[in-house]
């Protein structure tokens, strides 16, 4: 499966593990709930670690753990839930997350310019057919009025 990272089409090497799934090998991403429940077990995992955030999660709870993480997925249940835009801004701007901040799920390719401006650097749309649009739409505007968190 492919995604866009830093405006380039890239292979996705991460594997999301459901809450009752076996951790397995390689780079893995889990829900915030699982991260909070199984942190010691996860920290002993040999691959890289990521956490998936939903709109209702409180990202402040993750702030102290950010150095341990290489990926945070912001998973859109639907494109209209704008809380994830603030979560991205907080993770990148306030809590200083340096790893990959990835939008996944049902965001629209027409939202990626805004998403890139709140600190998201990777996009994995639900349908990979959207990848060319994501790439194109990242260039929708060359000017803006607000400071970008990513710059």
């Amino acid at each position, binding site marked *: 499966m492919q995604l866009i990272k830093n405006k380039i089409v890239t292979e996705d090497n991460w594997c999301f593990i459901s809450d009752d799934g076996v951790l397995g090998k390689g780079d893995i991403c889990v829900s915030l709930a699982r991260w909070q429940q199984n942190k010691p077990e996860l920290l002993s995992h040999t691959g890289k670690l990521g956490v998936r955030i939903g709109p209702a999660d409180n990202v402040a709870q993750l702030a102290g753990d950010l150095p341990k993480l290489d990926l945070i997925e912001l998973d859109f249940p639907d*494109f209209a*839930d*704008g809380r994830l*835009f603030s979560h991205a801004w907080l993770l990148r701007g306030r809590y200083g997350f340096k790893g990959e901040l990835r939008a996944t799920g049902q965001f629209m390719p027409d939202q990626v310019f805004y998403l890139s401006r709140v600190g998201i650097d990777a996009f994995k749309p639900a349908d990979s057919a959207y990848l060319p649009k994501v790439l194109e739409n990242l260039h929708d505007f060359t000017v803006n009025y607000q*400071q*970008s968190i990513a710059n």
Partner: protein
Amino acid sequence: MSIDIIGPKKHSHICMYQYNLIDQTLVDQRVAQFRRQTEQYLNGELTEDQFRALRLRNGLYVQIHAPMLRVAVPYGLLSTQQLRKLAHIARTYDKSYCHLTTRQNVQFNWPKLEQVPDILAELATVQMHAIQTSGNCMRNTTTDPLAGVCIDEIEDPRPYCELIRQWTTLHPEFDYLPRKFKIAVSGAANDRAATQFHDIGVHLVKNAAGDIGFSILVGGGLGRTPVIGQVMRPYLEKKHLLSYLEAILRIYNLFGRRDNKYKARIKILVKETGLDTFTEMVEAEWQLIKDGMELDEQRISAIQGHFSAPDYDPSAPKDSSFAQQQAQHPAFATWYKHNTTDHKIPGYRAVYLSVKAPDVPPGDLTDSQLDAIADLAERYSFGEVRSTHRQNLVFADVKQADLFALWQQLDTLHLATANIGTATDIICCPGLDFCSLANAGSIGITKEINAALDDMDYLHDIGDVKINISGCMNGCAHQSVGHIGILGVDKKGTEWYQITLGGSSENQAAIGERLGPAVAKHEVTQAITTILAVYVEQRQEEESFLAMVQRVGIDPFKEQVYATH
């Protein structure tokens, strides 16, 4: 990218914000983006839901008969070039008219979906757009139509409106809010922008030390649950304006309800959280961002430079013709009394153009009127026009010597009905005639009330009565804050109307009290004339309608209205 302010262009006349390269590029790129989105939708590459969210953020609704396009008029300021462009659009893409809204915007009721990108491209050539005029995002910032010229002003609010316009436009974090979000700014002692009924109201105030800053109100709103906004911060230094707004928006975006669209406005969050707790949350957030978002004085003064005063004629007060004309032409004198207002510069008046002629839907303007208004504004008011919250227009800077000539010309254009602030200066939504949300007609009721109140002497005797008519409980015409509010409701497929009394969106804000059971459509006008008759009969000397309602309550009106049924 930081904003590179190119100083105000030296237009011989225009004293309003002029786009720099950044503003223009942004609007042009927005047109290109929406053109692509429209094409993709028409090709089936965007779903209805996706395109709906995108088109709404470009002002495009789908109504009963056709799409409706709402064009932004930032804080109600229009140049004559912009007016002529609106006239051209009305002629070319619509049925030769447009409609003024209660938030100082302009609507077209008959554009074709596939032509909307072309309309937006036309607008972009005159520094206009439809960005964020609908959808769950930050909307057009509104203000006092008398900003910069009124006699009760603490400071001109327009530069702050422009700063807010820029900050709200394409804000990446706050474009998918729980619900729509409206900000109004007032710089005067008297609130003419209904700021207490906005998600955020910003008031310019002077503190005890004599410094000017802002008082911040939050949680006001109309619609289904009208709420009066509350002061959450009595004084905010100017440099913190945008950081404080950003803190409010971040808390709202994170914690505003998304489970029920009728409980998603910030007023519900403030109510459910409690003002004190809500304020603590905002202040805590603000502490973390305020130092990084300060507005420096150069930035503020650069924007203020765009709104410098026009070249007023110092000899304007010397004119004496104007007094003679009033004596010779009673109709002119009446118009002068009702449709013009005090100006801070001696010898000047601010003039209301009444877009409330009896036989026309309130707020509707034709293409030829728009063109003629542009000509008149150039001749008499420094080439600038303002739209008002009550769906009229203002020429802000007219010399008293020019008033008579202006009145004559406005009269031929049907824009001089001497009814500003009277019972026929009705705020009215499009209602069932155009709107897919409406339960009942509103324009027809307005026409009937106009017909019943065609005696101008009686109308002027009644004086200041604000009637607001909405065709459904979404309340686009702000019926809950009308001195008399009329709300259309559907009862088993027929149109009925609830009447409220005593609402006000001015300084002493109030939500109207329901008079009694809804009345049938054919009884509305009689109910209104009965209410006005009770007022005329029972008022004390010099007592306004609203003051009498506040003194006696609704009972005397109720008895008469329901007695005649």
